């Protein structure tokens, strides 16, 4: 166990995962991660190729090229950088490249902001990536290692989202699994079935598909992302057995349920449930302890959306408050929409209330959580902004 900055914890983890090609372009608050990775290389502590990209668009393209030739790859970005990558992100998923990117979540301009929210990540949620959200440093370490296992097993790209500043620049005690243990956990090259560019066996990648083919290819991608949920659960169980005891917990009033896709923290029969993703769940857990009938669901995997798991927990619950650090402008919080959709699908009686919180780095205080809990028990309406 070490006390590390969140960015350094991720950089150490990536070093131990041993990627072969890294490419990145600096953007706040992702910078510390890629600076650390460059330093490891300069100090001979890592042997990857580190390609300096001239934009995020290039960085994403460079790791796409490297992956297509058989490298394990890595990049990290934030906000505008993620949006600049977006064309490549769709392409990577469509080409089934097992690529890992960390997004240090930050709001999107204008007005320009360098502070945290989730607008960047949710904006590319339809790109075909598996999307993890981490609550704390230890979880982000865990999700990066899991990401490589899942990506290389399924030929799907995985993005790990960590809250900018709140996680990237804060210090926490964290355990980094060593390289040999990670190597054992991850797939061997020979066990992957990724198609590679190799003059010995020439193949064509990225062919264009006419209307006769396009739809089935997209359907297959969707199906594989949906079924990845089972793989994530299995690999999470294995991970916990090998690397860490389940949930070294914050306060331990309740025992958590965690299957890798979601975590539930709270009483066995809650009346109110809050649903959120990322670091704010830490604050919510603290507040849950002050109530008798309030619990929280942490969405650890946002895509594929863990519909079944969430449904099973909220089906008998009266009030559900969904917290979004982003908004589909002109509609409402994207996570709230997902929960409302599952309410309709399963004809649940629960009242779902969406709350927009923490945009552009606005602190989410315990008082706000308290207000959300009481507002969720009242008349429901669209999109309540909790600004203070």
């Amino acid at each position, binding site marked *: 166990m070490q006390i590390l900055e969140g960015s350094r914890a991720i950089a150490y983890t990536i070093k131990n995962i041993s990627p*072969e*090609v890294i*490419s990145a372009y600096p953007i706040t608050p992702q910078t510390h991660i890629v600076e650390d990775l460059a330093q490891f290389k300069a100090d001979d502590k890592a*042997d*990857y*190729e580190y*390609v*300096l*990209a*001239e*934009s995020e*668009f*290039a960085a994403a*393209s*460079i*790791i*796409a*090229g*490297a*992956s*297509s*030739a*058989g*490298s394990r*790859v890595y990049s990290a970005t934030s906000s505008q950088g993620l949006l600049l990558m977006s*064309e*490549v992100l769709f*392409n990577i998923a469509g*080409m089934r490249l097992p690529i890992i990117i960390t997004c240090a979540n930050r709001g999107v301009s204008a007005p320009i902001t360098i502070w945290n929210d989730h607008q960047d990540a949710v904006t590319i949620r339809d790109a075909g990536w598996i999307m993890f959200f981490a609550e704390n440093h230890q979880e982000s370490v865990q999700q990066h290692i899991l990401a490589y296992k899942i990506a290389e097993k399924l030929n799907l790209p995985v993005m790990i989202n960590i809250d900018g500043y709140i996680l990237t620049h804060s210090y926490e005690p964290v355990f980094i699994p060593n390289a040999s243990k990670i190597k054992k956990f991850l797939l061997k090259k020979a066990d992957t079935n990724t198609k590679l*560019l*190799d*003059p010995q*066996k*020439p*193949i*064509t*990648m*990225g*062919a*264009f*598909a*006419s209307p006769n*083919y396009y739809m089935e*290819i997209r359907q297959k991608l969707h199906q594989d992302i949906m079924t990845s949920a089972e793989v994530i659960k299995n690999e999470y169980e294995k991970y916990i057995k090998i690397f860490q005891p389940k949930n070294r917990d914050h306060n331990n009033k309740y025992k958590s349920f965690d299957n890798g896709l979601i975590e539930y923290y709270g009483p066995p029969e809650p009346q109110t449930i809050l649903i959120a993703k990322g670091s704010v769940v830490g604050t919510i857990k603290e507040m849950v302890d002050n109530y008798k009938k309030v619990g929280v669901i942490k969405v650890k995997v946002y895509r594929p959306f863990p519909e079944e798991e969430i449904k099973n927990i909220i089906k008998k619950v009266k009030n559900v408050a969904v917290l979004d650090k982003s908004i589909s402008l002109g509609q409402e919080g994207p996570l709230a929409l997902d929960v409302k959709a599952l309410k309709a699908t399963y004809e649940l009686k629960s009242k779902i209330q969406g709350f927009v919180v923490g945009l552009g780095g606005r602190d989410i205080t315990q008082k706000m959580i308290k207000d959300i809990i009481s507002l969720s028990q009242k008349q429901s309406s669209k999109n309540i902004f909790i600004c203070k």
Partner: protein
Amino acid sequence: MKSKQKKQSTNKNMIAPGHKACAGCGQMIAAKAVANALGEDVIIANATGCLEVTTTPYPQSSWRMPWIHSLFENASAISSGIRATLDYKIKHAKTKKEKQKLENIKVVAQGGDGATFDIGFGLISGMWERKENIIYICYNNEAYSNTGIQASGATPWGANTTTSPAGSGSSIDAIGSHQRKKDMLALALAHGLNYVAQTTAGHPQDIANKIKKAKQTKGPSYIQILSPCIPGWKIKSNQSIKVAKLAAKTGLYPVLEYENAKLTNVMKVEDNPLKVDEYLKIQGRFKHLFKNKRGRKQIKYIQSIADENIKKLEIGK
């Protein structure tokens, strides 16, 4: 028997027949010359465009070499990633033989003039700045032909395209394209490339020679090939070779190469070089220039570009 097989494999066309390009397509003639000169030890990253569309309708492919298409603007960056992978593998090769084999593999990025001069230029600049051992080939047909002949940064003065249409108005817009053609060769040289060359689809043997030189060059190289487009230039399908040769013969599009920043080879023009009229008049895209005084003025200006090339490069007599 064995030797016969080997001979067959060295003579084989690296782009298989059956592609869907227009009959007489200049780019396809050039791409075949390129692919055959590259041979088997190569990985190609291709930009979106006619070459990609006409050769890879899923689930078919004309490419007998490892080939990837990602997006319109990123063939260069994709090839940078492929290069990084090969570099990593070379450093970690277990045997000398394996290392040698990996070192023989060339990485090639290619695209049209839209992908090269315009949308992908920033990424090409990044690739060149990194001094990566990659050959970049631009098939320059001087317009966005795949989307219906719109003007690009490579469209020449006076050309009629669908977004720089010749018109009946009185403003400069009426002459067709009236932007300065971007000088990609100068930009390549400014990046310190060790091999920069220009040729045309009318010179397939020259293409092959230039590819061979680029293969031997350490670091990045750039080859730009003028590739007549049948519908875009409004020429007949048996005219692409002829018109490409005329481009060189008039001095408008000199065939040349720079090695280590020095002009080392350039194809001479005849004593009394052909006038640009000969090149322009067989192309429908310049037809409007021959119709009025204003058009003839543009032809004069185009002639002055050719004259300037001949003088500057000393390719007259």
